[in-house]
């Protein structure tokens, strides 16, 4: 085969690889949403008594709309509460009395953090901690409560 034809096909091969990678990045991994881009995001913290099975990268939703992702989960050594680091899109601000709940999609689906805006005038800044939190619903505890209620009746 002529050299030019080989060059042409190899060029197509490389382009095909690039197109596939771009397809995977944009369509499959949806990289446009909150990547590692620090410029468009800010960080908030929240302490929870129990995070259930919340995972890193879980979505943070307001009214069901995704505004950020969980970037890290650790344990606060003083209070022995789980400390969740959240990365939030800079376009959305929340008042200092905003509350964070750990919710579940469907009955047994994945867990996510639901934020509820408060009425305070001041907004939470980068690095602030949300104090009003409610823990994950643990099925065993619910059943336990239900059982003790039933037996006491």
């Amino acid at each position, binding site marked *: 085969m002529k050299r030019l034809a080989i060059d042409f*096909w190899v060029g197509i*091969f490389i382009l095909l690889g690039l197109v596939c*990678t771009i397809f995977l990045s944009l369509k*499959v991994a949806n990289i446009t949403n909150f990547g590692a881009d620090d410029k468009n995001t800010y960080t908030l913290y929240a302490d929870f008594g129990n995070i259930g099975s919340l995972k890193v990268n879980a979505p943070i939703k307001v009214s069901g709309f995704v505004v950020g992702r969980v970037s890290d989960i650790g344990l606060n050594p003083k209070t022995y509460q789980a400390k969740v680091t959240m990365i939030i899109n800079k376009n959305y601000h929340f008042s200092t009395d905003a509350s964070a709940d750990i919710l579940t999609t469907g009955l047994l689906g994945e867990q996510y953090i639901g934020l509820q805006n408060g009425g305070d005038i001041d907004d939470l800044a980068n690095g602030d901690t949300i104090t009003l939190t409610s823990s994950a619903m643990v099925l065993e505890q619910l059943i336990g409560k239900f059982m003790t209620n039933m037996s006491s009746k």
Partner: protein
Amino acid sequence: MKNLIQSIGRPFSSFILMLGETSMLLGKIILSIPYILKRPQLIIKELFFSGVLSIVIIAVSGWFVGMVLGLQGYNTLQRFGSVSVLGSLVALSLIRELGPVLSAILFASRAGSGITAEIGLMKATEQLDAMNVMSVDPIKRIIAPKFIGGVISVPILTMLFNTCGILGGKFVGVNLLGLDSGIFWSQMQDSVNFHADIVNSIIKALIFGIFVSLISVYQGLSSKPTAEGVSSSTTKTVVHSALAVLALDFILTAFMF
């Protein structure tokens, strides 16, 4: 007794010898990279033979693997009433495991065996010796371009495999079984992470590419200069590559995910 112990020791020592020779070969290839960069046409020719000519087999296998994943996943997930996660199932299993592994194995059997046979035959017909006599280093002229062509091809073919597989899974899930295409894609986007999944898939493919190409050129160089020797080396390339890829995949997965 002495013979028994010797027969235990011989495979081990020959294995160590093989590892040593392979690393020496890899060192020589890396040292000849400056020479290759001055003659990119050599690599482009190898990219054509090992990459471009593998496009069809990779695309078709990816498409069918994706379709099978879609079908099997749908049947199993339906029992638990969670067919909506079919998109993430197909995408994650392809990107994380099946894409790199199957592309590397297909590459070994489609291109790697060809590389081994070509080098083995050149050795059997004393073309490599002739080059040496003409003071052309066969490592620089023949081996290194083939190796580098393979290393570049495998990640590109893996991305192609992943893409075709996901499209095949989408074809079965959405077009044939009637899943909602919005749910299919959004579930996938929810669970696939660019850094953790796609970048790791490329790294895996690159490592597999290095190993498969190295095994191919090594087997070609160390084949016996007879028709039988070339044929057994070609077989060894495919077998060793498949084993190395599967074993490495376990190690890499343990580190990455």
